[in-house]
C-alpha cells in the first residue's frame, strides 16, 4: 500500500510531540516531511531561560536530535520557512522553493513575539526573546555590552531580565502595568516579587510607556525613551511584551483565523478537514494556549485522528504558571483574583517572604497564588483540576498536603529541599537525582513518563506528590498535568467509572461484550484492565457473569501468594483468629510432610506457611483441611479480634464471637481491593480496629462502628460512622457498607480512597439515612455470597484450572 503523505509546518514542541504520538500508534501510515524555520532540531523552548541564566546548555535542551528524524524516516527541512500552502494542489512551498505534497497537513507554527510598534524597533540590538538565536544574541551581547532593557514584566520578560543580570548586565525592566506578572499574580504577590528581584539588582520602571528606541550613528540602539521624555541607556533591548499566534501562513491559505487558527475538538481546522493545527498557533474554543501541558494534550488527540482511529476529543485545559528564576518560588493557577461568590484564605508574611492565597467557590478550590513557598503548588493544582470538595480539609488546606497526611513520606515532603541522593520512591529505590536527571535528559513532562522511565511512584504511589513537585521544579510549571478524567489503561479512553457504569447500564456480562460494546483498542485487554474488568463483571452481575481465571492476577488464579522465588504461601482461615490443637497439629504435620521452610504468625492473627511448591498447593490445602484465608485476594481477609468479654476482665462485649460472625457472613467476598475488619471488646481497642476498613469497638451500651481506616502505605485512622445496639445491626451495617463499596469502588481502590472520593456524606446517606436501601444492600450481598465456593476445595465451582498445579513432564 502506498503511504499517505503528512507534511508538518513548524518544528517545535507541540508539533513534534504530535508526530511522536502518531509514530507510537501508527508507525507506518505516513511519509512525513517537516519544515522548520529555525536551523535547529526540536528543542525544549521552556528551558531557554535556564540556558540564558547559564544553568543549562543548548545541547542539553534538544529534545529530538537529528538522528531521531532519520530513524523514523522523516524528511526534515531546517531553516526553510514555508511561504504558501496550495490547498487545491495540496502542496506547500517553502521560501527557497522547496515543495512538498500532502494528503494531510499539520500546521504547528507556534507564535511570534509581539514587537512594540515604536520608532527604532528595527535598530541593531533590539530583539525578541523567543528562540535559540535570540538567546545566543543575549548571551553574546552580555559579554560586550553593559546596559540591557527588557520591555515587559511578564513571565518571559522577568526570566530574560534575570538571565541577563546573571550574565553581568545592568538590567532595567519596563512594564506598562503597576505590578509584575499581573496576569499570573495578584497585587500582593506581584509587589513581593518586585521587591525580591530589586534586591537582586534588577531595576524597574513600572507604569512606564515606551515612546521610542534611540539609536547611535552605527545604527545600534543606545537608549529607551519614555512618553514623559525620560531616557534610560540601553545597549540591548529585549521585547517581551507578549506573543501572538503565528497565523500569517494559514491566513494566506484562506483558513479561518480568529485568536489563532480555528480548530475543532479533533484539532482539525474548521475550514479544511485535511489540515490540522496544534500548539500556540491554534485556537480551540476561542483559546490559544501558550503552555506545554495543553499543547501536548492537543498533540495526543491530533495523533489519534491522523492515525485514523477517530477517537479522542480535546476539550480544553486548565493551566498553571511557575516562574523559572532560581531562588524565587512563585506559583499560580486558576482564578487567583477571586471575585463575586468567592472566598479567600490568605496567609501573608512579607518579612519571611511568604504569601499564599487560595480562592474558594462553592466548596471547591478555584484558584491559588503562592509566593515564597510553592511546594504545595502541584497539590493545589490537583485539587483545582479535580474539583474535589474541600470542606473536610479546609482548616488545614493552607498548610499544605503534608498536614493532611496524604503523603507517605512525612518530613520528606519538601522536594526542593531534598538532596540529590535522597530517596523519593522507597518502593523502587529511586533518588531525587535520578528523577531530575531523567526529566532533563529524556525531556519528560508527565507523571506517567517519569513512572515509565524511572519507576518512581509506579508501585505504591505514595510519593506521587513528591514526584509531581520534582516535575514542576525541573520541567518548569508547564509540566503536563494528569488529565481530570483518567483512562483505565492504554486499551481504552474510558475511565474506571465510565466502564463500571456501562457494564451495568448495558448489562454486559462477559469480557468479549465489554471489548466489543466499549470499542476496546486491544483484542483481549492488558494485564492492567483485565483484572479490573473481570471484577466489575462479577460484582455487577453475580451468578450471571462468569469469573475468568486467566484475567486474574496469579495469586487469585492459584489461590496462594506468589513469592520472589516462584514458590507460594498458604494462609488458612482461622475464624476470628481462634484455632484449636487439632488444626495446629494438622498444620504442623503438613509443614513436615511438604518440607515447608518457614512458618510465620501474621499481623492478622493467622499462620502463614511460606515456600510451598506450586505442585504441593492442592495437597497442602487438603491436608490442613481449613478454609481458604483469601490472604492472596482482593477480598475479605482477616477479621482480627481481641479476647473480649468471654475472658477479659475489662471486656464489655463478646468481640471474638462478633468477629467470627462477621467473618462467616462475609468470607469469599471479592471486593475492589483487600478488605480487613477488626472487632475490639472495649474502648482499649486491642484489636486495633482504628486502622481497618471496618472497625467495630464494643462499648457498654453496644457497638461503635468505624470505617475507611488503613494501616498500609497511608496510615489513616478510621472515621467514626455510627453507634449500634445489637450484633445483628453490626452485620447489617457492615454488610451494606461493603456492598456499596463493592458496587461503587474502582478496582484497586481501598475503602479509604473510595470514601474520600465519593465523600463520607454520600456513604452516610446511603447507609445511615436510608434504612430500606441499607437493608437492600445487605440482602444483595448475602444473595451474592450465598453458595459461593471455597476455592481450595471446590475447584470446579470456583473456576480453578487445576492443570496449573501439574507441570508438564517431557517424555524423552
Amino acid at each position: 500500500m502506498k503511504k499517505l503523505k503528512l507534511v508538518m509546518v513548524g518544528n517545535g514542541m507541540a508539533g513534534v510531540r504530535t508526530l511522536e504520538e502518531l509514530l507510537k500508534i501508527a508507525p507506518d501510515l505516513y511519509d512525513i516531511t517537516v519544515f522548520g524555520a529555525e536551523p535547529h532540531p526540536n528543542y525544549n523552548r521552556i528551558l531557554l531561560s535556564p540556558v540564558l541564566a547559564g544553568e543549562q546548555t543548548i545541547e542539553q535542551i534538544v529534545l529530538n536530535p537529528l538522528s531521531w528524524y532519520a530513524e523514523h524516516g522523516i524528511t526534515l527541512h531546517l531553516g526553510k520557512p514555508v511561504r504558501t500552502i496550495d490547498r487545491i494542489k495540496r502542496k506547500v512551498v517553502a521560501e527557497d522553493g522547496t515543495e512538498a505534497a500532502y494528503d494531510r497537513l499539520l500546521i504547528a507554527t507556534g507564535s511570534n513575539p509581539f514587537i512594540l510598534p515604536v520608532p527604532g524597533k528595527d535598530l541593531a540590538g533590539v530583539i525578541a526573546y523567543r528562540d535559540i538565536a535570540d538567546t545566543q544574541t543575549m548571551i553574546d551581547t552580555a559579554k560586550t555590552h553593559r546596559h540591557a532593557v527588557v520591555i515587559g514584566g511578564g513571565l518571559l520578560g522577568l526570566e530574560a531580565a534575570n538571565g541577563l543580570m546573571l550574565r553581568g548586565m545592568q538590567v532595567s525592566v519596563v512594564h506598562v502595568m503597576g505590578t509584575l506578572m499581573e496576569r499570573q499574580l495578584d497585587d500582593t504577590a506581584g509587589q513581593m516579587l518586585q521587591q525580591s528581584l530589586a534586591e537582586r539588582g534588577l531595576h524597574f520602571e513600572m507604569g512606564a510607556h515606551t515612546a521610542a528606541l534611540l539609536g547611535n550613528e552605527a545604527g545600534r540602539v543606545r537608549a529607551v525613551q519614555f512618553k514623559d521624555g525620560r531616557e534610560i541607556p540601553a545597549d540591548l533591548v529585549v521585547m517581551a511584551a507578549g506573543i501572538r499566534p503565528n497565523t500569517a501562513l494559514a491566513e494566506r491559505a484562506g483558513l479561518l483565523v480568529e485568536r489563532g487558527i480555528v480548530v475543532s475538538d479533533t484539532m482539525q481546522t474548521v475550514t479544511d478537514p485535511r489540515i490540522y493545527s496544534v500548539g500556540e498557533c491554534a485556537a480551540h474554543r476561542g483559546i490559544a494556549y501558550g503552555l506545554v501541558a495543553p499543547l501536548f494534550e492537543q498533540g495526543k488527540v491530533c495523533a489519534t485522528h491522523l492515525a485514523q482511529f477517530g477517537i479522542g476529543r480535546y476539550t480544553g485545559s486548565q493551566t498553571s504558571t511557575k516562574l523559572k528564576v532560581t531562588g524565587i518560588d512563585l506559583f499560580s493557577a486558576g482564578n487567583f483574583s477571586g471575585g463575586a461568590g468567592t472566598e479567600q484564605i490568605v496567609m501573608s508574611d512579607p518579612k519571611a517572604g511568604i504569601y499564599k492565597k487560595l480562592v474558594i467557590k462553592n466548596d471547591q478550590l478555584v484558584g491559588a497564588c503562592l509566593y515564597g513557598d510553592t511546594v504545595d503548588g502541584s497539590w493545589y493544582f490537583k485539587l483545582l483540576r479535580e474539583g474535589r470538595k474541600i470542606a473536610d480539609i479546609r482548616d488545614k488546606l493552607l498548610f499544605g498536603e503534608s498536614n493532611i497526611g496524604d503523603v507517605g513520606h512525612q518530613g520528606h515532603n519538601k522536594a526542593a529541599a531534598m538532596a540529590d541522593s535522597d530517596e523519593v520512591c522507597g518502593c523502587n529505590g529511586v533518588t531525587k537525582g535520578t528523577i531530575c536527571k531523567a526529566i532533563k535528559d529524556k525531556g519528560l513532562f508527565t507523571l506517567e513518563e517519569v513512572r515509565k522511565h524511572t519507576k518512581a511512584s509506579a508501585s505504591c504511589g505514595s510519593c506521587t506528590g513528591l514526584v509531581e513537585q520534582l516535575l514542576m521544579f525541573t520541567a518548569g510549571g508547564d509540566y503536563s498535568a494528569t488529565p481530570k478524567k483518567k483512562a483505565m489503561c492504554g486499551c481504552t479512553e474510558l475511565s474506571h467509572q465510565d466502564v463500571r457504569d456501562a457494564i451495568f447500564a448495558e448489562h454486559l456480562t462477559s469480557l468479549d461484550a465489554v471489548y466489543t460494546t466499549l470499542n476496546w483498542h486491544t483484542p483481549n485487554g492488558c494485564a492492567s484492565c483485565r483484572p479490573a474488568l473481570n471484577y466489575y463483571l462479577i460484582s455487577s452481575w453475580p451468578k450471571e457473569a462468569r469469573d475468568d481465571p486467566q484475567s486474574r492476577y496469579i495469586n487469585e488464579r492459584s489461590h496462594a501468594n506468589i513469592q520472589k522465588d516462584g514458590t507460594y504461601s498458604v494462609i488458612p482461615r482461622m475464624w476470628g483468629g481462634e484455632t484449636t490443637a487439632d488444626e495446629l497439629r494438622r498444620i504442623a504435620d503438613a509443614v513436615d510432610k511438604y518440607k515447608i521452610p518457614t512458618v510465620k504468625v501474621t499481623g492478622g492473627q493467622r499462620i502463614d506457611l511460606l515456600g510451598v511448591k506450586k505442585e504441593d498447593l492442592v495437597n497442602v490445602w487438603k491436608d490442613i483441611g481449613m478454609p481458604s484465608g483469601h490472604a492472596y485476594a482482593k477480598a475479605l481477609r482477616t477479621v482480627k479480634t481481641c479476647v473480649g468479654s468471654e475472658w477479659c476482665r475489662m471486656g464489655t462485649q463478646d468481640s471474638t464471637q462478633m468477629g467470627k460472625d462477621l467473618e462467616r457472613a462475609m468470607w469469599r467476598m471479592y471486593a475492589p481491593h483487600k478488605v480487613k475488619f477488626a472487632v475490639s471488646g472495649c474502648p482499649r481497642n486491642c484489636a486495633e480496629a482504628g486502622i481497618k476498613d471496618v472497625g467495630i469497638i464494643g462499648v457498654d451500651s453496644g457497638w461503635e462502628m468505624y470505617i475507611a481506616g488503613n494501616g498500609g502505605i497511608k496510615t489513616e485512622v478510621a472515621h467514626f460512622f455510627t453507634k449500634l445496639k445489637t450484633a445483628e445491626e453490626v452485620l447489617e451495617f457492615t454488610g451494606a457498607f461493603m456492598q456499596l463499596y463493592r458496587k461503587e469502588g474502582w478496582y484497586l481502590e481501598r475503602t479509604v480512597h473510595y470514601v474520600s472520593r465519593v465523600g463520607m456524606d454520600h456513604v452516610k446517606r446511603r447507609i445511615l439515612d436510608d434504612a430500606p436501601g441499607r437493608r437492600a444492600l445487605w440482602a444483595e450481598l448475602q444473595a451474592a455470597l450465598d453458595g459461593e465456593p471455597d476455592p481450595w476445595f471446590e475447584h470446579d465451582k470456583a473456576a480453578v484450572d487445576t492443570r496449573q498445579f501439574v507441570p508438564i513432564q517431557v517424555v524423552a
Partner: protein
Amino acid sequence: MSAACLNNHSLPIAMNTTTPWVSICHIDDIPVLGSRRVERAQGAAVAIFRTGTDAVFALLDRCPHKGGPLSQGIVFGERVACPLHNWSIGLCDGTAAAPDEGCTPRFAVHMVDGQVHLDRDELAQLGTDLPLPVAGPAHRCQPG
C-alpha cells in the same frame, strides 16, 4: 506486528532430520490466554503460552528482571506480564517492553495437528546456566 516479531511458528520450519522435535502436549492442554510449565532436568522450566488466536510461544520461565516465573503471568495480545513486578515481555522475542530492558531466551515451537513440539537440543541446553531466584532460609545463606 513488526518484522522483528516474525519467528517460531509463523516462519515455516523445515521438518528435516536435523531438528529433533519433542512432542510436549496438545494445544488444548494450555488454557487460552494462559500457559503451562514444562519441567526440565536442570535449569529453569520452559513456559509455553497460548494466545487468544491460538498461537503458541515458548520462553524460558524466567523474567529478565528478577527471575520471576513468566508462566504465572497474565497473557494479553502477544505479551505476558511478569507476576512479580509486572514487566511486559514479548512472547515472540522474549524482550521486555521499553523502557525496561532485558531479554529472556525463547524456544522454537513447532505445531503439528495441534500438537506442540519443542527442539530437543534447546530443551536440554538453552538457558540452563541462568541462575534462579532464591527466597526464605536459603536466601540467608546467600553471599552478600
